[in-house]
């Protein structure tokens, strides 16, 4: 029985700027990191491995450079990693992305039964939160989203119980296998790689599946297989911020008074 964890390499978006003229992201010199949510998905799958003995496979669709992210997953203790990389996969939207990931999971299922697919809730670059549910839909798996705690796994009855966190409420859900679980960052605290594992991962040969291996229909993948297209990316105009008082005001009460007066004068709050 294995768990497949989907991880995406993303640019460190806090360092990404948008080119105002071209409307594209300036990625030069911006370091790539594992999507933070996926780091938690990875950790959770490793905890399930430690507790129940699952095999864990991490997969990622992306350019060859995404290999680094998968290597780091190896350093953390993942058993197997596969990079889904081919020029024809490029330009994919959430539909085409989930098609490729779902096909890969199907292939993995043929080797060793996949009972759980773990995803992050969303990425920090695309931000759609659609890929996980997309995979579940394509594979006809149960889908459990916004999971902040895994309560129990019952291997005998092949079920999993999770807690989902929503606005103002929690839901405890029980689901049969196979299921896709999209996790929140609160679910755990990721581990840190040991040095021997890091060194081992440096020589690890990452398996790459291109479309020769995947044998997918060109109309289902990449740009062609995408149902949506990005028309424009821009940062909305934002008025300049203003510093009240600055270093001259040391007393917090005085600073608060200045702020309240300012807000009142702008008719944003009133004392009535």
């Amino acid at each position, binding site marked *: 029985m294995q768990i497949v964890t989907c991880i995406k390499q993303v640019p460190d978006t*806090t*360092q990404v700027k948008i080119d105002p003229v071209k409307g594209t992201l300036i990625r030069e010199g911006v370091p790539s990191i594992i999507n933070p949510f996926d780091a938690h998905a990875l950790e959770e799958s490793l905890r399930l491995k430690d507790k129940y003995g699952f095999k864990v496979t991490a997969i990622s669709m992306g350019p060859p450079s995404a290999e680094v992210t998968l290597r780091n997953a190896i350093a953390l203790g993942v058993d197997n990693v596969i990079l889904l990389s081919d020029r024809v996969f490029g330009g994919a939207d959430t539909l085409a992305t989930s098609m490729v990931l779902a096909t890969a999971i199907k292939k993995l299922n043929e080797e060793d039964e996949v009972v759980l697919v773990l995803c992050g809730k969303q990425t920090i670059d695309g931000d759609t939160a659609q890929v996980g549910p997309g995979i579940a839909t394509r594979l006809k798996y149960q889908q459990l989203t916004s999971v902040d705690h895994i309560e129990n796994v019952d291997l005998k009855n092949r079920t999993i119980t999770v807690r989902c966190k929503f606005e103002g409420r929690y839901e405890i859900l029980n689901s049969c296998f196979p299921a896709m679980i999209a996790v929140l960052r609160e679910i755990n605290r990721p581990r840190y790689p*040991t*040095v*021997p594992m890091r060194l081992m991962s440096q020589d690890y040969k990452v398996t790459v599946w291109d479309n020769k291996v995947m044998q997918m229909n060109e109309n289902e993948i990449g740009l062609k297989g995408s149902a949506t297209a990005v028309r424009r990316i821009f940062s909305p105009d934002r008025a300049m911020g203003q510093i009240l008082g600055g270093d001259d005001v040391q007393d917090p009460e005085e600073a608060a008074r200045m702020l309240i007066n300012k807000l009142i004068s702008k008719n944003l709050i009133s004392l009535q």
Partner: protein
Amino acid sequence: MTAQVTIFAIVFAVAVIFFLWSCWQRFSLVALGLPDNRIDRIGLRIWNMLLYAFGQKRVVAGKYPFGWNHFVFFWCFLILLIANTEFLFHGLFPDIIALSKLPEGLYHALALIFDVVSLLALIAVIIAISRRLWFAPKYIEAKTVDAFVILGLVATLMIAFFSLHGSGIALGEEAAAAWMPISSFVATLFRDLPAVTLANVKLIFWWVHAFALLGFLCYLPYSKHMHILTSIPNCFFKSIDKVNTQTPEVFKKDNVYGAGRVDRMRWKDLFDSYSCTECGRCTDNCPAANTGKELNPRLVIHDIKINLLHNGKLIKQGKAPELSLIGGGKEGSIKEDAIWACTTCGACMEVCPVSIEHVPKLVYMRRDLVEMQAKFPDELLSLFENLENRSNPWGIIPAERSRWVAEVNAPSFEKDKTEYLFYTGCAGSLDTRNKRNTEAIARILNAAGVSWGTFGKDEKCCGDSARRLGNEYLFDRMARENIRMMQEAGVKKIIVECPHGYNTIKNDYKQFGADFEVIHHAELILQLIESGKLQLKNKADAGKIIFHDSCYLGRYNGIFDQPRKLIEKATGKAPMEMDRRRETSFCCGAGGGRMWMEETEGTRINIARVTEAMKSDPDTICVCCPYCVTMMEDGLTDIKASDKVKVIEISELVEKAIK
């Protein structure tokens, strides 16, 4: 051969064989440690041995008057070593070896010396026993059986010595009686005894003396007094340079990192554990131990010894150790909380009379936790990730590093043109409060016409915290990257603002082939003033100033006088001094990566330090380190004194004087 000689020869042989066997059992375990070159620069080593062991330099230093008692003890012991050797061999070969066979002058002189020294030793024992019983300081474990057994044996030995010689004199058998005032006095007590009884008394005390002496010998290797055997060589093997760095590791497949087992320490670390006198001075000076943390440096050394003795045999046989070195719960195992509590301030190493090196041992154990087990306090996860991904502790976007430059005229470092690289460090370039120091330094350098430049946003973290926290793998990468960058840019001289960066670039990077001329801004600014390049236009006024030594500048690198002189030049007055200052200064609490960790156990170290400063009623606490700035300011805020007392970095003080 008389029956007495035969019996003694047997007892002597058994005792000596037992002693040698015990020594072999114990000392052979030291070879289990990792290699460490401690036999270079022999001349200096011999000098250290004379100074620290025979001169007892640290034993009598500082605020420890009882150290003089040990001084007396030590020298009495050495002198009586001759007397006792003579005693043993005289016992074995009574007809061949005897003091009285020496030339008369020498014989009389030795008789006098041994007699007087034995009395001194007896007095020293009485003082030591009284101290343990009635004036014991809290940093030692005073009432241990071990201590009283040893003191008791020494006292017995001395009493037996006087009784033996006293009865001999009373019998008229002692040729040098006139030269033995104390024994002669004892003889007057025996005066009225008949000759037969006297002979028996003499015989009995001869055997008491013999058994006390051989008992002492046999007991030594099992007692804390093993230091009698080890401390002299330990002073020979002591680190010649200041212990301000740790041994690098080789990152290769199948290697093991850090000291998760006692045999993963260097052999000198193991020998250190045998040399501990359990004097407790390390603990007495430890900021962690003094503020209620789990850490007790004396016990760390003790636990390493117990662990080695417990596991040594198994390890020798190639088996896994039974008692874990890290974990705690038992004697011989060290708690993780203790290992993490160390600020690496070095106070323990500075006062240890036998120059035991605590910090490397603690760092090697941290390495095991971080590198082999990935087990560390929660706060460190983001620290390590931030250092790795963004090369600063906070995870601030690297581009922000050059923001301070906008405030002053700060040039970029240019190859073959700029003389000094100004390395600001993370706090100096990213922390709002500490950017003020950086700006002050920049203005001072400009005013003095120094040729300097920075790496701006390309500057990277030096890696000090990573190394002290045991993340040597990360440090290794950061160090190599920095050195490569600096060498490629043609950097030769570096001004460092942060004492941690100063120590790292100066001492740690040396291990990676770096050879830069590193100078702290306090040193450089003083030079600029003294050479007339920097003109002080007026006297800086910051009220009554008290100076706080930074551990990494002072203890780690011996920079004590320069900042003090600088304060005097800038203000016209020498600063006030703390009770604990210079070599025995008290840490602010931020070193060793503690800056990035919560301090929940006990009381806060920075509060202890500002409270100490407040005793002198200062207006300003002057420091030389951005971490100290933060810690002192936070401490003052916590004790609600920040309105009254300000913290000033030395560069800010000088800046006031050049305006």
